[in-house]
C-alpha cells in the first residue's frame, strides 16, 4: 500500500510521466482517496509552472556587453587575418 510519504518521493516522476504502469496506477488509486496528496501534486505542478514562467535568469548586462566586445574583437581579427591571406 502506497503511503503519502512514498507518493511524495515519486511525485515528480508521476508529474513527468516517468513511472511504470503499476506504480502509476497505485499513485492514481491513492490520489482518488487522499485529498492532501492531490493537493501536493497540484502544488508541485504549480511550483514547476511558476519556475518555468519565471524568466530563466537574466544574465548580468555587463557580462553580455563584455561578450559582445570580445566577439566583435575576435570577428575583426579573423576578418583582417582572412584578408591578409587572400
Amino acid at each position: 500500500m502506497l503511503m503519502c510519504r512514498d507518493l511524495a518521493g515519486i511525485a515528480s516522476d508521476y508529474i513527468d510521466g516517468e513511472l511504470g504502469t503499476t506504480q502509476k496506477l497505485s499513485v492514481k488509486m491513492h490520489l482518488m482517496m487522499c485529498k492532501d496528496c492531490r493537493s501536493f501534486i497540484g502544488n508541485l505542478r504549480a511550483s514547476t509552472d511558476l519556475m518555468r514562467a519565471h524568466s530563466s535568469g537574466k544574465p548580468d548586462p555587463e557580462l553580455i556587453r563584455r561578450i559582445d566586445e570580445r566577439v566583435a574583437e575576435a570577428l575583426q581579427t579573423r576578418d583582417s587575418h582572412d584578408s591578409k591571406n587572400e
Partner: protein
Amino acid sequence: MKTAELEGHEEALITGLQAGNEADFQQAVRLYTPGMLAVARFYLDHANAEEVVQDCWVSVIGAIQKFEGRSGLKTWLHRIVANRCKNKLRSNKKEVATDFSATLDPELADRFNASGRWAVPPKLQFHDSADALMENDALSDCLDKHLSFLPETQRSALMLYEAHQHKSEDVCNILDVSTSNLRVLLHRARQRIFLMVETFQETGEC
C-alpha cells in the same frame, strides 16, 4: 511560436553566425547565454562560470563552421560549455560531489507522521496562473533568492529541464549524470521551490 518557425529562425541565425555577422552573434548571445550560464554553474563558481561562457562565445566563431545542425544549436552550445568546464575542473582537480540517496527534502520529510501519512499537509492555494503570479515582484525576487540558495547541481538540472526545456536525455548528457540521478535532482529542486512558495503565500515573507 510554432516549432517550424523556430527551426527556420534558428537556421537563419546559424547561417548568420557562420558568415561572421556581428548582429547575429549579438542576438545569439542574448538568446543562449542564460542557458550556457546554467550549465557552467553546475560545475563552477559564479566568476569562473562567466569566464568560461565568454571564452565559449569566442571559440564559437570558429567552431560554428563545423556545426552540422544534428543536435540543435542550443544543445550544441551547452555541450561546448560542459566540455570546457570539465577541462577546467580537471586542471583544478576539483570534484563535483552530490548526494543522490534521499529523494525527499529534509524539511518535507518532517511533515509526515510515523505511519507515513501527512502530519502537516500542503497548504498552498493557487488561484492565479503562473504568469499572473510572476507579476508579483516580491514573489519573483523571492524565487530568485531561493534559486540562488539551491545546490548548484539541483539548480542547473532544474534550469536546463524547466527553464530551457531540454529533454532529460540531453540534460543527462550535458551534466554527465545518470537518468536516476537527474530525477532526484529535479525532484529535490521542485520541493524547495514548493516549500518556498508555500511559506511566501502563508507569511508574505521570503
